[in-house]
């Protein structure tokens, strides 16, 4: 038994400043996104509020800027700042939704597979293997393509986020399932689970009340990292033309649109949304990394 455990554990309390800053940054971006309805100067999703005549006005701080549009306007005359706030909201909603859905499915199936083992475990894991045989982006492309063909409304502002969430989550749940399964197997073998089994609690209750709280640590860590990945996947799907409709742009859609203007000197349409996305993903990743290092039992000194 290692006598050095206690000092090292105490050492690990508290997050470094970089993590604090990252968390703050993430909070600011998420806050702006969530409160876009109140904070944004314009509603970029209301077609009647923007005029083509205002298109491609540079940011206010440049020589040709217009004080009405702090970060300039896009190619349709939308206020870029507002579009970014709403876009971040869409991106975060899709990313968050996808992570939530994937985590829910993954945790549920992972618990079942890990707790019961045997055939049901094999079945769930093989399904996961098959799904992992498709790269994320390809599977998402397929799902959204098929959804669009099946439901003509799938490309509309109301439905597209749901389709995108499903398209991303259908691949990502496997990761959660694998992690939760492994953790569940470890927990199930622990004595406290045996103890409640001896008492005779039903499996459902053991899984939900006793095992679930103990396997959520790694799930949270994967979730933070995946949130960033999901936002990026949505952006890439948007680049490939199956993202949000142009009347309700996400950050990814904005970048995709702005990407077409890279050579034309209209740099702000791509730059600001890309910067926001990078900062958001960066912040979430920094926090996620820190969480991972902190909650990874392997990285902690053994008891």
């Amino acid at each position, binding site marked *: 038994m290692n006598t050095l455990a206690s000092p090292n554990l105490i050492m690990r309390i508290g997050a470094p400043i970089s993590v604090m800053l990252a968390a703050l940054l993430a909070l600011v971006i998420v806050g702006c996104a969530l409160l876009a309805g109140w904070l944004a100067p314009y509603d970029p999703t209301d077609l009647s509020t923007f005029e083509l005549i205002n298109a491609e006005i540079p940011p206010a701080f440049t020589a040709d800027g217009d004080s009405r549009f702090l970060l300039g306007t896009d190619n349709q005359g939308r206020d870029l700042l507002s579009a970014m706030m709403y876009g971040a909201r869409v991106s975060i909603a899709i990313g968050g939704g996808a992570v939530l859905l994937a985590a829910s499915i993954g945790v549920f199936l992972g618990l079942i597979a890990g707790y019961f083992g045997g055939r049901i475990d094999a079945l769930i894991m093989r399904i996961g293997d098959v799904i992992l045989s498709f790269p994320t*982006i*390809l599977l998402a492309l397929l799902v959204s393509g098929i959804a669009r063909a099946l439901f003509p409304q799938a490309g509309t502002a109301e439905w597209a986020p749901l389709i995108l969430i499903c398209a991303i989550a259908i691949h990502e749940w496997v990761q959660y399932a694998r992690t939760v399964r492994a953790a569940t197997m470890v927990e199930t073998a622990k004595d406290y689970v045996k103890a409640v089994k001896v008492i005779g609690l039903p499996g459902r209750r053991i899984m939900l009340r006793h095992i679930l709280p103990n396997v959520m640590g790694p799930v949270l860590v994967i979730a933070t990292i995946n949130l960033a990945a999901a936002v*990026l996947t949505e952006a890439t799907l948007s680049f490939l033309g199956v993202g949000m409709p142009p009347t309700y742009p996400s950050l990814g859609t904005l970048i*995709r649109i702005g990407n077409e203007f890279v050579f034309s000197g209209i740099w702000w349409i791509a730059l600001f949304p890309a910067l926001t996305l990078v900062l958001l993903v*960066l912040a979430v990743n920094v926090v996620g990394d820190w969480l991972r290092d902190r909650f990874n039992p392997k990285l902690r000194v053994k008891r």
Partner: protein
Amino acid sequence: MFKVILSRIGQAALVMLVVSAVSFVMFRYVGDPVASMSRENAPIEEKQALRRSLGLDQSFVVQYGGFLKRTLSGDLGISYRNQRPVTELIAERLPATMELVIVATFLSLALGIPLGVLCALRPSGAAARLVQAVSLIGISTPTFVTGIVLILVFAVTLGWLPSFGRGQVVEIGWWSTGFLTWSGLKSLILPGITLALYQLTLIMRLVRSEMIDVLSTDYIRFAKARGLPMRYIHFRLALRNALMPVITVTGLQIGSLIAFAIVTETVFQWPGMGLLFIQAVSFADIPVMAAYLLFVGLLFVIINTIVDILYAVVDPRLRARSA
């Protein structure tokens, strides 16, 4: 070992069946090639006749049956767009994509492993912190943005590297390679980096965390207690253990690279399978799409099998079990 391969083949069959079903759903829903295949002023009758001749008017079951039968007999059909056998098209594009993926994998391993080790050995050093921060930017920038920025800098502004295509390729049998010419190699750099960036970051971070884990194990402590040189402990002993999961992840990631090659190939006009697929999608060239999916699925299964075998070769514990 034989058992492993056998069970892998079984799994492969399952995967391929699912893939074929998914591919077939695509047949039905992803689009209708008739519009793309007809001239502008084609009358309705002409379009219907075309639809009939493609068998698109038949029932789902009949179409799927026919598709399965043809696929099983090795016939993946003929591209609607190019009117050439799909197998031929895929074979033509395979070298480009594979070389790109090989370069990207090589780059990500060649850079990712040393950087990961660096970060693990000196976790609080300035270099490690810098690498960690830059790596986060690497995974938080969409591929298409990275690609276009690289083109802007290295092709347009500096004029060092070509902005698109494979450059001069050399044909060796049916394989065409860009490795043997100067322009071919130069052309590989930008798309290779673009594609590798994400995986590089992933490998670096994986190596880092695995290395940290391994360094805290008893056998490394025991190695230290035997007074072995630190370099030897880090690079020969610990690294080998830390690389075990890297094998799996690299295997899985090669599949993702093939998929992400869709974006990279579009940005760099890389004449590979991803570009073929994207163009097939916009033409609703169903046989090509289906074949691409089947092929990627197959590739995935093959890679996974190789990874399993590799694992058994590297890890004596598994070797003993499967022998």
